């Protein structure tokens, strides 16, 4: 019930953007079930909001340009793009199954709405409440030839499955000499801060997994990336962890192709070219840095190059190093705590590869080395002002 309440309040937080997206989808054919759900929920939402005081969102979502190369598009928020990817998969791959806690009725974040009705209860089903079981079960199903798409309800609750992920999923192919593998396993989990998620509904655990050869870790910044990268994870012949920034489930809305398409893994994307500083991030933090790019241009006349890493492991060193070789300065930002965070890996690698190009020490703007706090969240996160200040120092070093 805690998680359900959490999901409900996540809906509250983004009711503006979410409602608009919903309304837009009421009559959009394939997505009509979302509309029905919304109408049932919306009176609740508006009556509860009066008692809530929210800090303004720490980012502004910037929609991607409408993709033209994959056929017709529909306006989707991030959770709808997840559903769309899962829908495409279930339609094309008869072995594919989706399972986890509460996925049958549509999921606490609505990512699986309608799929059970469309594809059957043997393909979209609830499991007992046990994360180590969910991942172990998914490994076994994948090893036996099924496409297994497991959901962990919050990334914060993935740790009970850490052993199954690190000792089992990641090492299955290697230890068997390629006799067996669980490459058809994908683990999806809501990820990142959400405004009021506190210790166990806010975490960004990617660095824990980045130290583990054998798995892939992928994090999208918006609905178009989400669908394309998720479909790549599902098709990939290696076990993948796909983290979905839950703050974007309703807040991020853009035109997404309705048919299946893939965006390659282990490729970073240069979102904005620049010449003075390279900024690297992933997930929601991309949108924070987009604003920093503008602020740096307007207030300092500094030209920033913004890179969305997208895949944490195995990561795209080439794109990042090429950019730093050009700009000579690097800022990496993530929500997770700084010590042992993935920025340390990027920083160290770039320092090895681009030592002669670097004109200032590499800067990390990250979460503090504390648990993720409830009421202090606005002070905890590496927001645009912290990142802007870091750019200023990088330039004046």
């Amino acid at each position, binding site marked *: 019930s805690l998680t359900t309440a959490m999901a409900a309040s996540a809906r509250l937080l983004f009711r503006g953007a979410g409602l608009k997206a919903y309304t837009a989808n009421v009559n959009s054919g394939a997505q009509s079930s979302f509309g029905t759900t919304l109408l049932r929920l919306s009176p609740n939402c508006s009556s509860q909001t009066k008692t809530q005081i929210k800090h303004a969102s720490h980012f502004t979502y910037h929609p991607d340009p409408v993709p033209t190369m994959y056929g017709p598009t529909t306006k989707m928020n991030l959770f709808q793009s997840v559903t769309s990817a899962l829908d495409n998969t279930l339609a094309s791959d008869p*072995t594919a*199954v989706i399972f986890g806690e509460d996925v049958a009725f549509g999921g606490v974040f609505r990512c699986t709405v309608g799929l059970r009705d469309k594809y059957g209860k*043997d393909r979209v*089903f609830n*499991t*007992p409440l*046990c994360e*180590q*079981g969910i*991942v*172990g*079960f*998914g*490994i*076994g*199903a*994948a*090893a*036996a*030839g*099924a496409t*297994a798409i497991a959901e962990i309800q919050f990334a914060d609750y993935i740790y*009970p499955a850490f*052993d*199954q992920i690190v*000792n*089992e999923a990641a*090492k*299955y*192919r*290697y*230890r*068997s*000499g*390629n*006799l*067996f*593998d669980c*490459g058809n396993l994908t683990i999806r989990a809501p990820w990142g801060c959400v405004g009021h998620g506190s210790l166990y509904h806010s975490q960004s655990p990617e660095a824990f997994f980045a130290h583990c*050869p*054998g798995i*892939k870790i992928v994090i999208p910044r918006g609905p178009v990336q989400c669908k394309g990268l998720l479909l790549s994870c599902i098709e990939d*012949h*290696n076990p993948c962890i796909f983290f979905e920034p839950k703050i974007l489930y309703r807040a991020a809305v853009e035109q997404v192709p309705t048919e299946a398409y893939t965006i390659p893994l*282990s490729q970073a994307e240069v979102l904005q070219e620049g010449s003075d500083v390279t900024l690297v991030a992933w997930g929601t933090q991309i949108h924070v840095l987009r604003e920093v790019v503008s602020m740096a241009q307007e207030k300092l006349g500094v030209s920033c190059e913004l890179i969305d890493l997208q895949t944490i492991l*195995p990561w795209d*060193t*080439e794109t990042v190093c090429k950019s730093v070789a050009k700009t000579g300065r690097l800022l990496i930002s993530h929500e997770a705590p700084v010590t042992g965070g993935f920025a340390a890996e990027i920083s160290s690698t770039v320092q090895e590869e681009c030592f002669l190009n670097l004109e200032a020490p590499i800067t990390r703007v990250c979460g503090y080395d504390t648990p993720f706090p409830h009421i202090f969240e606005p002070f905890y996160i590496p927001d645009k002002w912290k990142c802007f200040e870091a750019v200023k120092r990088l330039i004046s070093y």
Partner: protein
Amino acid sequence: GASNLAGALRQQPFDSSEEKPQFPGASAEFIDHLEFIQPNVISGIPVYRVMDRAGQIINPSEDPQLSKETVVNFYQKMTLLNTMDRILYESQRQGRISFYMTNYGEEGTHIGSAAALDSKDLVFGQYREAGVLMYRGFPLDLFMAQCYANADDLGKGRQMPVHYGSKDLNFVTISSPLATQIPQAAGAAYAAKRENTNRAVICYFGEGAASEGDAHAGFNFSATLECPLIFFCRNNGYAISTPTNEQYRGDGIAARGPGYGMLSIRVDGNDVFAVYNATKEARRRAVAENQPFLIEAMTYRIGHHSTSDDSSAYRSVDEVNYWDKQDHPISRLRHYMTARSWWSEDNERSWRKQSRKTVMEAFEKAEKRHKPHLDLMFTDVYDEMTPNLIRQRESMWRHIQQYKDHYPLDAYAK
């Protein structure tokens, strides 16, 4: 049958007109007095047995009536495993392989259960189930190749000895973390059910591993998701040095099955026919009814836990001797065969000689082979090598070219 059981465990339709419990979580009557349910550990679930210690069939209606050929094959597989165990155990003592785990006293659980399966049934094991592979025809050369980690090893020399696996024989590669295979077996059985190919999955584990959280996960998932799966617990009394009274306080592992809504049985693990019968029936019903079964085979770990363990530090030699000399699965089956004149002293002598010879031949061959090519350290981490791994492999080769005198390069395949 199963449909009734499944029906009883489903939620009852809500009907407020009757004065009976309406709680969605259980189907039960009210009682009007306070009474805690007592665990029954003094008189536990009985141990199913087909033949006694002298190899006599106790109840003729339970005799599986296997042919002479089948029974002799059981015996030869059990004794061949025993011979291989003795030779590889000694080879570890001499430092020729790094590690070994014997199967002494548990040969009957392996052969009896393996024989009751279909060869396409997928096996998930712990590490003390080499007899299952032996029964399925895994060549001695490949057992040895794995233990020696030589160039013939299907696992490419990456895992410790006794971590066998065979795709051809549907035996999923063993890993060291205990009980992790249990929920995996549930997932594999679920996939098998959806394929609709009459395939079952069997999952072996020790009574110690059953204390892991993954055991709980696997039992519960397989029951709620209705998986055609046989859980086979080898309860041999010890998890390394830990006796069962420090492992659990209930009536062993079998008693947990009903708590998960799982049909369960306890068998004499030293009675290959009891193991065979239980597995055969569990397999038949698991596939027909899509539900899991739990078999707890009571046995005794006669050998040390592994070559890194001296079990005399925590248990008496007398205790071990009882099981080795008076209640052993191999001697019991031999009594059965002798009584039918299916096996003689001559047969025994020549089979011992022959099995020892074949094991020694495989052993010597394995020892002479090169280790796998060094490049195999970097492959199979992912399906394709990442640029990062290619760089690291190149870096290793550059290094060993420069310092080649300091590495055992000659032992490895070129």
